[in-house]
């Protein structure tokens, strides 16, 4: 019998892949992000379709309990993702500060004609 969590996992996996493909079609996604979410979506579909695969994963990574593998792997992946995003946000912040400064310098030397009321 198919469990509810398998159906949910499968649907979420399909959703990730569909959105990534749609974005790719509109050329609105970078290669790195597309690859990452295709991998995550595919993994979700595989685990949802073959729930027993989690036992193989548990044996492979050597945790004592299945639950440790079920929660441990996503936690590690999410931590890496957060770290990656944090670095990206930090770099973007730096770029924004520079951009705002450049705009201000431009405004100083070439003031726009727009007058505020």
């Amino acid at each position: 019998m198919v469990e509810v969590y398998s159906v949910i996992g499968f649907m979420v996996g399909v959703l990730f892949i569909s959105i990534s493909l749609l974005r790719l079609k509109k050329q609105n996604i970078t290669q790195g992000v597309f690859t990452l979410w295709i991998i995550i979506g595919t993994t979700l579909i595989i685990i949802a379709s073959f729930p027993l695969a989690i036992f193989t994963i548990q044996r492979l990574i050597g945790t004592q309990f299945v639950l440790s593998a079920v929660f441990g792997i996503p936690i590690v992946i999410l931590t890496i993702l957060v770290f990656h995003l944090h670095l990206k946000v930090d770099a973007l912040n730096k770029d924004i500060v520079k951009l705002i400064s450049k705009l201000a310098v431009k405004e100083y030397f070439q003031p726009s004609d727009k007058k505020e009321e």
Partner: protein
Amino acid sequence: MSQDKVLVFIPVKNEEKTIKKIINDIADVHPSWDILVIDDESTDDTIKEASKTKARVVSLVMNTLGRSSVITSFMIAYTGKYDYMVKIDGDGQQEVSVLWPLIQALKNNQADIVIGSRYVKKTPETDSFIKVIGRVTSSALINFKTRGKSKITDCTSGVKAWNAKSIRLLSSMYFNDGMCHGTVYLQREIIFAARNGLRIIEIPAFYKKREHGKSKSFNLINMLSYPFRFLFLLIS
């Protein structure tokens, strides 16, 4: 002989009650100096008040917690080929009369950066004990870090002047790192300047008690995170 170009830089955020007087006081005494007001998204009438004066007002399109205003001021001073830039806060705590001695010290080639210090001559304390302790300890640690190349007592002073040489070097530093050191940028600047051979001196500056508004740089989060940020700066 051509007159030296001097830029006065005043960073502001919600200083509607003090800004006009500061600008007019400077313009009365030094009519040839250009005055630049950089507004970090004030929500009151600061821009309106500053616009009534001879100052050039640049309004940043987004609040970057003071980061962009520092970079912008250095870039404007560098691009505009100013001989000297002097900074004074827009909160009215510093006497406008301190600006001339700062510029004079640069003109006399005594230093490349001149800081108006509250501790060169004993002046009545206007700040809390914890701020003073933090300031004095940080200054001592900076002097230690630069191996005596800087001998400063007030590393967070809001009144400061630079000559063309230091403007060139610091504008490039600030733009390249995007002010990534945030709240400890003043301390970082001193370490960077001293290590790059810029001469830094201090002259006495008198600070008044803040009459309007409250400090933007001093809040609980900044106070708690300051030791860690400063430690990171020292070991980096």
